[in-house]
């Protein structure tokens, strides 16, 4: 029996939980969101990723009800949510600043939303206990927010926003205030909690690693537009534009002109004295069309001798070496001035470093290693 993969976005019959339809949001003259359409499905962990000011927070605030779209509609379970105020939406939000109520204890913070629903005392107590257990905060129930650590505060904020069992949970830079080590642990914890509760999560972040780690799909945003919305693997390996390729991870962009060879293969010329680069591509290019090859450093092999049967092999000198412990990134300059990054994994602890500055080396990669994009 084939394993069922969670991919509702590929299922034409699936009903999206959230549907942005031609949504535009303007603040005065400034267009924060520019005519965007997007579907988010139930149980997804959806990340909105982009630099600050790209409109990701506005998207989230429209879902929460703190902003209303200037044009277009947003549907939640098929219902237009524009007329519903924030306090009547089955949507809860975890704020970037956590926004914990400083005058209430951890317990009262978590119970706050439940009390507004006029739940009876015993059910409130039971639900709060459940949330405390889920976020491992049982010991801190009586403490005030200023008496617990940053990581614990983050978990209180999560517990409080999950307590009302919302259809949709919005997380605004939830790990922005945590240090790197704690952040990693928390990311896994968050995925775990999302899986346990089955809630749809929409997370806003500017940290691409975080988005890649936690999300089922990532929407990369730029200037009020969603540039690409896809699974982390496709975003990384198959970016649709130079912007996405450049924004996610480390990459070398080589600009040149395309020359069709055999079916689905192109040769790109990028410098006078250099041989052309051969690349496979699904996209169609006409002869002489401007294009760009995006190639990840880990897909470039670095060697001292010219490789025997490398399709693309270029010679250059090492300009810079970035040693990161687990990997080393070499910046290799070709005679024309183009710099290409190549990465090696440091699998041996005490091996002698093979290359050093000013060394002449060969770089090589296969025809499928890079992505050919419109320049």
């Amino acid at each position, binding site marked *: 029996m084939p394993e069922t993969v969670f991919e509702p976005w590929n299922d034409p019959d699936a009903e999206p939980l959230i549907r942005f339809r031609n949504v535009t949001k303007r603040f005065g003259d400034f267009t924060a969101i520019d005519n965007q359409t997007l579907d988010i499905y139930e149980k997804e962990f959806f990340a909105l990723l982009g630099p600050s000011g790209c409109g990701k927070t506005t998207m989230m605030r429209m879902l*929460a009800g703190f902003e209303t779209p200037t044009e277009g509609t947003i549907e939640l379970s098929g219902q237009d949510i524009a007329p519903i105020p924030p*306090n009547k939406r089955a949507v809860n*939000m975890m704020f970037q600043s956590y926004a914990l*109520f400083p005058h209430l204890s951890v317990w009262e913070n978590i119970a706050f*939303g439940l009390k*507004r629903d006029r739940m009876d005392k015993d059910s409130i107590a039971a639900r709060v206990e459940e949330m405390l257990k889920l976020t491992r905060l049982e010991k801190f129930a009586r403490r005030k927010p200023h008496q617990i650590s940053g990581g614990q505060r983050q978990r209180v904020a999560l517990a409080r*926003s999950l307590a009302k069992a919302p259809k949709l949970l919005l997380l605004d830079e939830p790990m922005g205030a945590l240090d790197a080590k704690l952040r990693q642990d928390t990311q896994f914890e968050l995925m775990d909690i999302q899986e346990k509760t089955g809630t749809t999560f929409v997370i806003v972040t500017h940290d691409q690693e975080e988005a890649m780690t936690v999300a089922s799909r990532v929407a990369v945003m730029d200037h009020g537009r969603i540039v690409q919305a896809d699974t982390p693997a496709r975003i990384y390996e198959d970016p649709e534009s130079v912007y996405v390729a450049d924004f996610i991870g480390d990459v070398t962009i080589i600009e040149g002109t395309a020359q069709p060879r055999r079916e689905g293969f192109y040769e790109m010329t990028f410098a006078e004295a250099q041989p052309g680069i051969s690349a496979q591509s699904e996209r169609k290019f006409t002869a002489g069309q401007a294009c760009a090859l995006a190639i990840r450093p880990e897909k470039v092999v670095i060697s001292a001798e010219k490789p025997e049967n490398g399709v693309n092999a270029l010679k250059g000198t090492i300009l810079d070496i970035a040693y990161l412990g687990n990997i080393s990134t070499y910046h290799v300059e070709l005679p024309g001035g183009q710099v290409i990054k190549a990465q090696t994994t440091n699998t041996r602890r005490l091996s002698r470093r093979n290359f050093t500055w000013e060394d002449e080396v060969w770089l090589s990669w296969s025809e499928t290693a890079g992505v050919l994009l419109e320049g």
Partner: protein
Amino acid sequence: MRRLTWFNTTSLTLGFAFLYLPMIILIVYSFNKSELVTVWAGFSTRWYGELLENDAFLDAAWVTLQVAVVSSTVATVLGTLAALVLVRAGRFIGRTLFSGMIYAPLVMPEVITGLSLLLLFIGIGLDRGVLTIILAHTTFSMCYVSVVVSSRLVSFDRSLEEAALDLGCSTVQAFRLVTLPIISPAVISGWLLAFTLSLDDLVIASFTAGPSATTLPIKIWSSIRLGVSPEINALSTILIGIVAVGVISASLITKSASLRQQAEERAAVKA
């Protein structure tokens, strides 16, 4: 503890003497047996006893208290609302004018405020009495409250209110359950400020008070014109005592609250 140099000691002594010598003389002479204010004739609490039988003073004290409590409470409500609008409403037409007008009475000479209120009350035919003093005091102390409260609101994290809305509060509930408890120290100190201002106001009260109601400062002021009596000294000593107790206890409460919070924070860090 560092020892003070002779220069520091001298300036400290002179400074404190300058500030407190008049009050010390006043307190000492309030226990004077003699009817002559400037001649010491031995210790006595006689004037305090007589004060308690002086109905005019007691009435004035009662009016002053009523005016202070009511006007500072009304001023606190109005001042807090004004602060909320000024800090929250963002840009609206006439905002600068409005905020300027809120702060103008702070620098307006009291004589002018008093006179204009007097003209208003005469104009609308309102008899001068407790009500007019309350209205006048509310008018000027409200500005102080709004200054104190708006300085707190500026640093107030709006996402706290959004979180309350997000968790199902109506706007009114969000204010009552989240905003108000958090800004309450500023609101309370605004109230205390308004209360104190009302308690010792002489100028505006003398414009707006009528024959039916006199406040304590007016009473003291008018008695002085007939000559300083030891009774006034006794009354002033009591007032100094009340103010001192109030100020000291307020600062002690604040200090112990902040000490407790620091201790709790230390405990939380260790845990």
